[in-house]
Structures are given as C-alpha cells and as structure tokens.
C-alpha cells in the first residue's frame, strides 16, 4: 500500500487478515515488525482503521483476533475431544496454535478444519512424547467422516440368502460409504475406552493421566448405524477379511484365507458369523457375483 493513498478493498482485507491472525496478537504484530505477524506499519493501521478514546482501533481489532483463534480452537475441541482429553487443555491449545498457523482454514465450512490434523500431529515436534496421537486423531477424524458420509441402502440377511448357492463363492461385497477400516500402531481403541471411563468418572480421574496406549499393531472398523457412529477393535483375522473384501476379493477367497488352521466346518461358521455381523451393523451395501466396487 502506498503511503497516503487510500487503501483499496483487497489491501484493506489483507491487512485486516494479517492483524487478526498474527499469533502473538494485534499489538505485537504492529510493534514487532520482525515477528511472525510480519512487519505491519503502524501508520498503515492508523490510516485504515478507526477507533476512539473509549476503545482504540488496535483493541477493537484484538476482539476479532481473539474470536478468530478461539472459534478454531472450539471447533477442533469439539471434533477431537479425545485428543484434547489426552493432551490436556494447555497442550491442546498449543497444538491448535501451531496447526492453524500452518493450516489456516481454506474451506467455507468449519467441518473440514481438522482435515489435515492427522498428518500434522504425526510431525508435530512438541507432541513427540505422545507417539500414539496420530492414531487417535485418525480415529476421531474417521468417525467425523463416517458421521456425515453419504447415505446408502444396506445388504440384508435375506438378500444374501437369496444368492444362488452355486454363485456364493464368486460373490463380492460392496461396502457402504459410511464405513472405514483402520490400522493402528497403538492400542488406541482400548485407550479410547479408558478415556471414556475417566470422563464418566465425574472428574475424579484426570483424562490426561490415563496411561498412554501401548505400541502394538491393532485395527478397528468405524461404521454408522441408525445415524449413530460406532467403532470397534478387530482381531487380525477379521481385519484381514475386511481388507480382502474391500479389495474386491470373492467370498470364496475370503473363506479360503479364514480357513487357514481351521476345519472346513469351523471356517464356514467363522465366516458366517463375521458376515452376519457386518450385515447387522449395516456396513455392506450389496453382494453378488456381479457386484462392482
């Protein structure tokens, strides 16, 4: 902006933005030109904004700066309650400060503010003492995605039973959009439950004091039934079966894999129980010899 010339609308908005998103606050952004706020000329601020003796312009801009940050903080606290519980409010606040600096919202809806948080926490140096966070955040973000994923018809037991016997082995599953299979490096499903118990404890247990989850390969599925989101830990057998089904393997091939180490009768029973649970939880959309993924 040229000194003395009235600012155009774009310059005004860029200045406003720089001031209200400056991490140390509006005053610091003006007073410390070498700070992260980036060299804002105080004369420019005076020329653009109007205040009065009751409330100077800088303090007025500070109202927006506070609202900017706390709105984003509140949004992420709502979308990632377990992350906040695990870190405690102060560490969570600091994490959000770093996150929104690196990834300001670029979507018109706050719903998507956290979309880059899973990858961000994985590389967030101050959170290095919490190696399980990436897993926990991925679970929370996946739940959010399943919550409002597209609606879909679901496969029923009756529809499965109607498949001609000779083509059952060649049948493939199609999954509903409101479903996800997750693999973790930590026991985050168990940890989630422990956090729930701590929270249900009426404040007697500090969630941040809940022992951190052990490092161990685990898996979970996330699904939605009757508009409510659920997740559950999986044994390796079921995780593998789901993986195969998601990859489009036939029911015959899935049963073959499950049969390893089991008698044919045991394998059939195991596969049957598993698939019935998938149907009852509404994670399968369709099944048939010609079902395309």
């Amino acid at each position, binding site marked *: 902006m040229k000194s003395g010339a*009235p600012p155009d609308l774009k310059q*005004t*908005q860029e200045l406003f933005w720089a001031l209200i998103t400056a991490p140390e606050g509006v005053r610091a952004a003006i007073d410390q030109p070498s700070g992260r706020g980036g060299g804002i000329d105080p004369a420019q601020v005076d020329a653009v904004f*109007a205040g009065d003796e009751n*409330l100077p312009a800088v303090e007025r801009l500070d*109202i927006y700066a506070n609202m900017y940050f706390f*709105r984003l903080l509140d949004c992420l606290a709502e979308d990632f309650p377990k992350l906040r519980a695990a870190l405690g409010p102060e560490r969570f606040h600091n994490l959000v400060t770093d996150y929104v600096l690196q990834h300001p919202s670029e979507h018109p809806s*706050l*719903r998507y503010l956290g979309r880059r948080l899973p990858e961000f926490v994985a590389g967030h140096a101050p959170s290095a003492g919490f190696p399980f966070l990436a897993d926990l955040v991925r679970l929370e973000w996946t739940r959010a995605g399943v919550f*409002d994923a597209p609606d879909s018809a679901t496969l029923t037991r009756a529809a499965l039973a109607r498949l001609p016997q000779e083509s059952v082995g060649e049948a493939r599953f199609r999954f509903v959009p409101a479903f996800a299979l997750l693999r973790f490096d930590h026991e985050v499903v168990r940890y989630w439950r422990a956090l729930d118990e701590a929270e249900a404890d009426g404040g007697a247990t500090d969630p941040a004091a809940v022992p951190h989850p052990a490092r161990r390969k685990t898996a979970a599925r996330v699904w939605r039934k009757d508009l409510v989101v659920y997740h559950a830990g999986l044994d390796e057998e079921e995780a593998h079966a789901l993986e195969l089904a998601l990859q489009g393997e036939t029911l015959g091939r899935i049963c073959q894999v499950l049969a390893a180490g089991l008698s044919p009768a045991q394998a059939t029973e195991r596969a049957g129980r598993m698939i019935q649970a998938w149907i009852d939880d509404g994670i399968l959309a369709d099944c048939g010899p010609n079902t395309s993924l």
Partner: protein
Amino acid sequence: MGHPDSLGHGVGLRRDHFDRILARPARVDWFEAISENFMVPGGRPLDVLTRVRERYPIVLHGVSLSIGSTDPLDDKYLDRLDALAKRFEPAWVSDHLCWSGVGGRQAHDLLPLPYTAQALDHVVGRVQRVQERLGRPFVLENVSSYVAYADSAMPEWEFLAEVARRSGCGILLDINNIYVSAKNHRFDPRDYILGVPKEAVRQFHLAGHSNKGTFLLDTHDHPVIDEVWELYKDAVRRFGPVSTLVEWDDKIPPFERLEQESIRAKEIQDEALGPAPVKTGRGTA
C-alpha cells in the same frame, strides 16, 4: 393481518434441540437452518433437516458466502448451496453483509466492510451474481461490528439500503446487531431502523449479547435484553409483522426456553401493532 410473506415467529435449528423438535410439535412457526451445517453428503444432519422440513417452513441462513471478500466467489460453495436449496426449498436464502476471508483462507467470522463506493460496487455485483446463480429470493443481514474504517463514506444503513436498492436483494435486519454496533460505534440505533427501506426488509433476527465493559459482543448466549426488545418494537412499527427469528447459539438452553423467547417476540409484535380489527361477522361495504 400479516406481512404478505411472513413466516411468523421462528427459532434457529440447533443440534442440541434435534431430538426435542422431532419428538413433539414445537410452539414456533418456522426454523432457520445454518446452510453450512447441512452441506454434507449424508447422515444425521440431513435426515433431521428432511424431517423438520416436512413439518415446518425453513430458511437457509449461510455464514460463509463472504459476499464482500475480494476473493472470487466460491463456485463450489454456490453449487452446494444451490443443491441444498433445491432439495429443501427454503422460503429464502440469506447470508451476511460482510467478508469472511481473503487469499483463500477462512476466518469463519463476519468481518465488517468499509462503507465506500468501491465496496458498494463490489458487493452489488456479487449479490447480483449470487441471485442469478440461485434463482430464488436472497437476503442479506447486517452484522455486529467492533471496528470501523477511516475511509467509510456512509453509515452502514445507507450502504445496506443501497445494496438492496441496486441489487434487488432483501434485508434481514438483525435488531440485536444494530444495538450492539450502535453501542460500539456510538450511533443512534433508531437512525438505522429509519434508514433502511421498508419494502426491502424480509426478516428480523433477535438474539442476546454480552457486555464486555468497553464494548458489546454479539455472543448469542443470553436472552434478548429489554433495550433490544424496545428496538424490535420500533422495527415492527416501521416494517410491520415481518418474519422474526430468535437465535441462541452458545450456552444453549432447553428448547422450551427458546420457545418462550419466540412467543415473547410474537407478543411484543402484537403489542407494537395494536389490537387487531374486531371482526363483526358481516362483510364491509
């Protein structure tokens, strides 16, 4: 007697009240849904809105159109808004006279505009494009503001009136926002009411705010205060019984408390307009 297209008295549709609203009839005439909350592929939000829409008129009220931003209008956003409007057929679509971000980044706030000729031309052109894109009534709301611009050449109500006159959009007059901005910028809120063209006002908003000592903050977490009810009365006298909506977005009380606030708005409207003509049972000459 009612305004030609008045929906009556409604409240904002908020997640905390979904179960209650679906469980039994609400003592309100209509609901206002935040557009962005329903711009999702599926799941509970859309299911709830579908069921609410089966029973009540709705208005779609956006917070992210960013009509005053110097960034290009977001076509994807407009597509989603258009799809939502086609699906739910709101009485109208509204958003705010503000900007929300620049350089592709979103503040998720309602940031004030300088009231200059340049900003006026900019906003009018964009409102016209939005109206063409949506092909349905579009309404702009005045926001609460905390800072002003040195080069503003007109008061906000003149700017808003000009936007409405030149673009043909309607006005959503937020009575609480007028009160908050009047205190923050030291103008008479009645000048605002008098400065807005009567024919453009399509809806009122009412809400609570917080007194922070040196300024008022539009928090939507309190009941409407008496001074704002008085201003509402003035607005009803000037603009007639236009659709009125009570917003409560934080520290959300039980739905029944919100119903009471809406019923109070109706009572105040009736009081402001005086007794209805007595029906004699005979036709008049």
